């Protein structure tokens, strides 16, 4: 089980802020492919990976990062703080 979180327009497109997913995905990319195959709203949210960022256990990482041992994965658009 892994906690998957969505923020900003990713959250709006998918329609929820957080869900628990049972997955055997080995990398973030595998998880993205799995989610894309679920429903249109996921496919839409993950349409353009260049406009997305990912964090594993609250650390920014890359889409090819391994998921082994991860508790929390978050997807969001590029940050706009300040």
């Amino acid at each position: 089980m892994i906690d998957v979180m969505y923020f900003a327009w990713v959250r709006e497109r998918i329609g929820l802020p957080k869900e628990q997913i049972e997955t055997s995905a080995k990398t973030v990319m595998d998880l993205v492919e799995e989610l894309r195959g679920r429903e249109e709203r996921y496919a839409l949210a993950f349409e353009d990976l260049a406009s997305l960022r990912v964090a594993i256990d609250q650390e920014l990482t890359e889409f090819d990062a391994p998921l082994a041992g991860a508790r929390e994965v978050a997807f969001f658009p590029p940050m706009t703080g300040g």
Partner: protein
Amino acid sequence: MDIRVQELEFDAGVELARFTAASGSAGAIVTFTGIVRDTPDGDLDRMEIEHYPGMTERALGEIAQKAQDRWDLSNLLILHRFGDLKTGETIMMVATASRHRVAAFEAAEYLMDYLKSRAPFWKKEFTKSGATWVASKRDDEDALNRWKP
């Protein structure tokens, strides 16, 4: 070092006075205050700032630590709000204190550059014609390159 992520409005003047008092023998204090600005059309109703609780504090802590490792700072403040904000309200503030002005200026710019594109905040503008997420700017990402070793 003082890092705060809060919904509550704050008074930048009060914060500066408190920071100065806590900065000991600093010879230079630099502050930056971010204010909610109206759109060019003047039709901003409000702005909403979303953040990632937990990761935000962690990311800000790392950014602050890197600034402290790089410059000789006697004090450092990062204050960032989330939630509903109106035009003219303060969004955020950074302050740096050092013996010398160059370190204080550079560290403040460094904090702002990293905060813009590495701290998990997202802004949404609500105007009379609808709501839009503020897009990140290429310039903000480029700004990080000047700090690469």
